[in-house]
C-alpha cells in the first residue's frame, strides 16, 4: 500500500531516470577520453539518493563520499556544472579544481564530495553540533559506504552524535563491496546497521532498490529527528551495477549476481508500478526517457562549451584570504 502521491512518484521516477542517463553519459565521456582521474558512478543506487533527499528541505545539509554526483544534483547543484567539473572546465561546480570526487555548494548546503573513506562522518557530527548550537530543526544526511563502516572515525562520530543527541542521519549505502572486497570478508556482522548497537543509537534497514520504501521510511525518520534531535543509522541495501570506478572491470562479481539486482531495478520497478496502477503509460515513460537523455545531453553540451579552468585558479583558495 503506497501512501505517496502519484504525481510525486512520477517526479521521483523522472529524477532517478535522469541520474541514470546522466551517469551513463559521464561514463561514455570517460570512455571517450574526455576526462581522467577517478570517477565513481551511482548507477543502480538512484533510489537511495532520490528517496532520501526528497525528504529534505533546502536548509538541511548533505555530505557524502566520492560517489556523489547524483546526491550533489539532488541537493540543488546544477547537473551541467557537475559534468563541467569532470571536464576540468571553468564552468565546473568548483571551477575545475576538484573533479569527480569533490562537489561542493555552500548555498545549497552540499558539504562535499570527499575522497577519504569515513572522513565525512565526524564532519557530519560537527554540522549536527552546529545545528543544535544554532537551535534550528535542520538535519544533516551523511552518506557512507558499507566498507566505510570499518573506519574508526565513523565510530568516534557515532559516539559523539549519540552522546550529544546530534541530528545526523547516517546512511550506509550497502552496495555489498568496498572496491573489489565483499563486505562480509572485512567485518564480522551480517547487518551493518548493528554498528549502532555500540551506542544505543536508533537504526534500521531499508530496501535501497525500492524508491517508495526508501522515501516513505526516511519520511518517518526525519520528522522525528527534527522534533527530538538525535542521530540515526540507516542501512540501505543496494547495489552498484558498474565497477567501483569507471576503470574497474568488476570481475569479482558474477553476471548472475549483477542480474539479480538489475531484475529489481528501482527505475523499472517504479515504472511498472506507475503503469500497473494507471498513473502512467509506456508512451509517457518513453517520453520521460527522451527528456532525460536530452537533458543529460544538454548538460554535456554546456560543459563542452565551457572554457577550460582558469590557470590562476591553481593558486587561489589555499587560504581564506586568497579569494
Amino acid at each position, binding site marked *: 500500500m503506497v501512501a505517496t502521491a502519484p504525481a510525486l512518484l512520477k517526479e521521483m521516477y523522472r529524477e532517478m531516470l535522469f541520474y541514470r542517463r546522466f551517469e551513463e553519459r559521464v561514463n561514455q565521456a570517460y570512455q571517450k577520453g574526455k576526462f581522467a582521474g577517478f570517477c565513481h558512478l551511482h548507477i543502480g543506487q538512484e533510489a537511495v539518493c532520490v528517496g532520501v533527499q526528497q525528504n529534505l528541505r533546502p536548509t538541511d545539509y548533505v555530505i557524502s563520499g566520492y560517489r556523489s554526483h547524483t546526491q550533489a544534483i539532488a541537493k540543488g547543484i546544477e547537473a551541467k556544472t557537475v559534468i563541467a567539473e569532470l571536464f576540468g572546465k571553468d564552468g565546473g561546480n*568548483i*571551477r575545475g579544481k576538484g573533479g569527480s570526487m569533490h562537489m*561542493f555548494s555552500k548555498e545549497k548546503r552540499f558539504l562535499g564530495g570527499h575522497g577519504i573513506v569515513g572522513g565525512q*562522518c*565526524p*564532519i557530519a557530527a*560537527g554540522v549536527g553540533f552546529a545545528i543544535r*548550537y544554532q537551535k534550528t530543526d535542520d538535519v544533516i544526511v551523511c552518506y557512507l559506504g558499507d566498507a566505510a563502516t570499518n573506519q*574508526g572515525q565513523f565510530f568516534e562520530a557515532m559516539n559523539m552524535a549519540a552522546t550529544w543527541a546530534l541530528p545526523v542521519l547516517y546512511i550506509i549505502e550497502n552496495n555489498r563491496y568496498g572496491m573489489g572486497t565483499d563486505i562480509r570478508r572485512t567485518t564480522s556482522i551480517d547487518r551493518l546497521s548493528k554498528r549502532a548497537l555500540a551506542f544505543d543509537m536508533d537504526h534500521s534497514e531499508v530496501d535501497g532498490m525500492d524508491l517508495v520504501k526508501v522515501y516513505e521510511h526516511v519520511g518517518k525518520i526525519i520528522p522525528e529527528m527534527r522534533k527530538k534531535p538525535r542521530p540515526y543509522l540507516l542501512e540501505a541495501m543496494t547495489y552498484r551495477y558498474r565497477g567501483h570506478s569507471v576503470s574497474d572491470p568488476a570481475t569479482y562479481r558474477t553476471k548472475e549476481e549483477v542480474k539479480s539486482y538489475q531484475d529489481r531495478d528501482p527505475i523499472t520497478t517504479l515504472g511498472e508500478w506507475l503503469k500497473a496502477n494507471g498513473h502512467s503509460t509506456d508512451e509517457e515513460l518513453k517520453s520521460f526517457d527522451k527528456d532525460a537523455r536530452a537533458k543529460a545531453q544538454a548538460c554535456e553540451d554546456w560543459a563542452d562549451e565551457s572554457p577550460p579552468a582558469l590557470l590562476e585558479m591553481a593558486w587561489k583558495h589555499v587560504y*581564506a584570504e586568497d579569494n
Partner: protein
Amino acid sequence: MAMIQMREALGQAMIEEMERDANVFLMGEEVAQYDGAYKVSKGMLAKFGPKRVWDSPISEGGFAGLGVGAAMAGLRPIIEMMTWNFGIQAFDQIVNHAAKMCYMSAGQFKIPIVFRGPNGAAHMLGAQHSQAYEAMLTNVPGLKVISPSTPYDAKGLLKSAIRDDNPIIFLESEIMYALKGEVPDEEYLIPIGKGDVKRAGKDVTLIAWNKMLHLCMEAAEKLAEMGIDAEVIDPRTLQPLDEELIFESVRKTHRCVVVDESWSFASVAAQIADRVTRSCFDELDAPVERVHCDFVLMPYAEHLEQAVMPSVDKVIQAVKDVMYL
C-alpha cells in the same frame, strides 16, 4: 600592565573572543569541568556554560573532524588537543580535511578553526609524550602555524587566530604555562605572520620560538658577558614565516643560529637555514648553524633528557662556531 601566567593569557584570549563572538566555542578533553588538564580553560565552563565549553571523549580524530564540520556550518571552534602527541590521531582531519577544504570547495567553505595545545618535550614524559610537531604541520599549505613564547604574544596571537578564517595550529608548551609576563589591560591583537625582535644585537642572529626562545635569551646574556652581542628573533608564527625580519637581522649580523627543539631532518630550522642562506648568501660570514634535539626518541631519565635536548651551552657553542671562535 598586569603580570600574568601564560595559561591565564591564553584563557583571557579565549574568554574575550567568546564574549565577542557567540559562534566561538571550546572543545577538548577535560577543558570544561576539570578547567583544563593544564588549567588553561580555568573558569570558562562557569562563565559560558556547557553550551560553549565541551568536554570531549578521547576521540582526537573525531572531535577534530567535528570542529571542521561545525566550522563549515558557521561556527568558529577552538579545539584543544591535550597535547600534540595525541593530536597526530587527528592528522587525517587536520591535513586532509581542514587544510584542504577551502581549496577543494573553490573558496566556498572557509574553515575558521583553532587547534591548540602543548607541543614538544615537557619534563621526563618519555618518547610518546615529548614530540615536537612543527616540522610536519608547517609543511602543509592551508594551515597557519603559530608558536608563541610569552604571555603577551600568546594572548595577542590566539585572539588573532580565533578571528582568522583559516585552520590554525597553535603550539603551546606544558612547561611554559606557569611562565609569567606582562600583558596590557586593554585589548590588543598581534598579527599572524609577524615576528618580533626579542633582543637587539649586532654580532649574531639567534632564531627561536616557544621554549627555545627563552633558552636563547639566556644564552644571549651569557654571550654578552663574553662580549658577543646577540640579536634574538622570535618568528612567533612559523607558517607563514616572517622572512624579511629574519633576513634583515642576518644582513646586519652576517651570522645566524637557528634553535629548534624538534628533530633536525626536514625541520623548520632546516627551512629557515636554507632560506637565510639563499637570501643572504653574500652577506653570510659562516654557514647557518642549527641546534636541535638529538635524533633520538625522548628518554625518561632527567639527565638523559637534558643531554639530548638543546641547551644554553649548545647554543653558545653554535654561536662560537659561526663566529669561528
